[in-house]
């Protein structure tokens, strides 16, 4: 089952299914390595729940919730 990255809870793991952002945001996301097939884990959220921090490919990436909306993921259960 695929959901938006925004809905993922802390400590939840998943795999990126697709990135539906184009233009600058899409390029930025891909340059950082968030491409389909990437395994990740939500490691934290900022004090106001936004942005969200992900652990992937050996480093930690942060992005805002409204940017996470463009990323479809398959959570691992």
């Amino acid at each position, binding site marked *: 089952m695929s959901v938006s990255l925004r809905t993922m809870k802390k400590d939840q793991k998943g795999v990126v299914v697709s990135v539906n952002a*184009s233009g600058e945001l899409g390029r930025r996301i*891909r*340059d950082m390595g968030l491409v389909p097939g990437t395994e990740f884990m939500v490691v934290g959220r900022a004090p106001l729940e936004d942005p969200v921090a992900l652990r992937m490919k*050996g480093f930690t990436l942060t992005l*805002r919730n409204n940017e996470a909306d463009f990323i479809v993921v398959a959570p691992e259960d």
Partner: protein
Amino acid sequence: MGKEYFVAVSGQPNCGKSTMFNALTGSTARVGNYPGITVDRTEGRYCTPDFCANLVDLPGTYSLTSYSMEEVVARNVIVDEKPDVVINMLDATSLERSLYLAVQFMEIGVPVVLGLNMMDEVRKKGIRIDSKKLSELMGVPVVECIARRGVGKEELMESVQQVVEATEGEWNPVNISYGHDLDPVIEEMTVLIKENEFMTDRYDPHWLAVKYLEEDEIVMKNGQKADPQMAVQMEEKVQTVSAHIQKTLNTYPEAVLADYRYGFINSILKQGVISREDNLRFDASDKIDLVLTHKFLGPVIMLLIMYSMFYITFNVGAIPQGWVEAGFAWFSNTVGSLLPDGLLRSMVTSGVIDGVGAVMGFTPLILIMFAMLVFLEDLGYMARVSYMVDRVFRSFGLHGMSIMPFIMSGGLPGGCAVPGVMTCRTLRSPKERIATIITAPFMICGAKTTAYLMLVRAFYPDNATTVMFGLVLISWLLALCFGRLLRWTALKGESTPFVMELPPYRIPTLHGVAIHTWDRVWEYVKKAGTVILAISILMWALMTFPQLPAERVAAFEAQRVQVAEQSVAWSGTAEEKEAKVKQVLAEISYNEGEAALKHSYAGRMSEAISPVTDVAGFPWQANVAFIGAFAAKEVFVSTMSTAYSLGEEDPEEALSLTEKIAADKAWTTPVIWSVFIFLMVYVPCMVTVAVIARETNWKWATFSVFGSLTFGYSLSVIIYQVGSLLM
């Protein structure tokens, strides 16, 4: 002499690239700017008996797209300056992501040497990397490094030499397969490019075709200029394939290209290059983050760290600042005593030495502040700070990174907008950066603090602390609101993506911190110094010319003579008489000073603008003070004191200034708050304006003057007019 090589050092941010660059070039490194932009260009030399390498440190980038200034610069250096070799440093602890940049270099065709940095950390994590295998599969030399200790630097340069000798300046672009949808189109476009020699002098045909598919704005613009007909043909091809991919795969060519690049990297890594991939494992940094970015603890620790930075800067920094100022005061006195009394002396001491001295006095503060800031940045903490506050700042159209400039500029009263504006360099996005630069000077800097202390003590002696605290809150509110206004109007646009790495915590090297700090300080001294000199002389002239006509000077002189004559007849002891004479003479001097000030261009300006400022209710003394305070906000207090014809700036006399102001009926509550708010936002001081011009351009510096002026004036008029109605 041996041979000369031109080598570019590149890498993704936080990969240890600059550490290796410093290790290679040592003290030969020199910083400049790329022509026309503020991205630093660091160059240095590395020599062996066989050859000398001229190295240039490219800005840290994740990719070679045309998304950011850094990426464009890195790409242009490769394409236009054609280095013999690129040393691509990469963080071996996240190899897959790091190779993304390397692959792009290989696509351009520039000879590459890979430096696998952080090999100590890799081993500590129990990961094994087969660098020989990686070298074989990628077809480029791979050197294991530990940049912090300089390990691998000789091997890197040996590889550079080997590569230069092997390639002999031949570039050999690597063509990755981008799948059956894109490969045929790329092939067609490449043939077309070659046939028409479409920008082939600058770009490799295959690479150019790929860039067209990525819809790279800069390349496409160049294409339209070079050959409009070809450009149209190319763009049509891209549109066709783009529509096809959109229909069949629901994605974009650019995304497909990225997927295939990562696929290419993965296929290499999976052939036994990495023994154990453990991408999601928690490391020490994550554990530290559990505390430092904790929901409640995180913000508290952040405030503590900022407060201590601030405290150290302005308390420890005050000591060397005192030395520098004392040095300039001594210099000013010495030069003053050497020159004959008159305009030349006045200009050299008041205009040149004092003006430049006031600016140089900031140097120790900037040095200390930047040393700490560079340390926190290199440590990886600043990324966490912006991560924590981004949500709040975003609602005002700013970026998480905007918090630091605000704090530095006086978000805790006593800061200074000069280092504050310079701190804005940490902001990557131009719109949010400019909005931050324009609004950061609203904060209550050290100079404004003195003015407010004087005024608050005069009008609110019983609630001084509360009023001061209120003013600080107002300054934050106004800065954020003006930021919001700017982002709705002049700087309209989407907020910049906050797709950012939280780099692992790494203790920075002393060498690295020292070099970065020195670069920034030196730039400040060099350039701000020259601009300031000019403005300083201008301000001096405005407050000095035209001088009082001879008959008025004579009139004051006559008064003095008269006092001296009359004093003989005064009653009292000789000492009492002397004291009284002194007092009366002082009064005459201040009257003369006031007359001279009102007569000068600055004074006339004040009178000329009074119809306008009357609407906001400013007393005339404040008018002159505001004009003078453009040079430096400290001037507000001294001008007020001159304007009120009062004593020197020693504590007792200052108190009587407070009393005098408090007694002045002109200062009603609406006037007080009108002046308070205006002083807060009306213009940045000239030092700040010069720095704003340097960090952006004169257009924005001018805007920061007139925009703030309009904003401050509107607020003051509202406060005064509404306040007067209500009173």
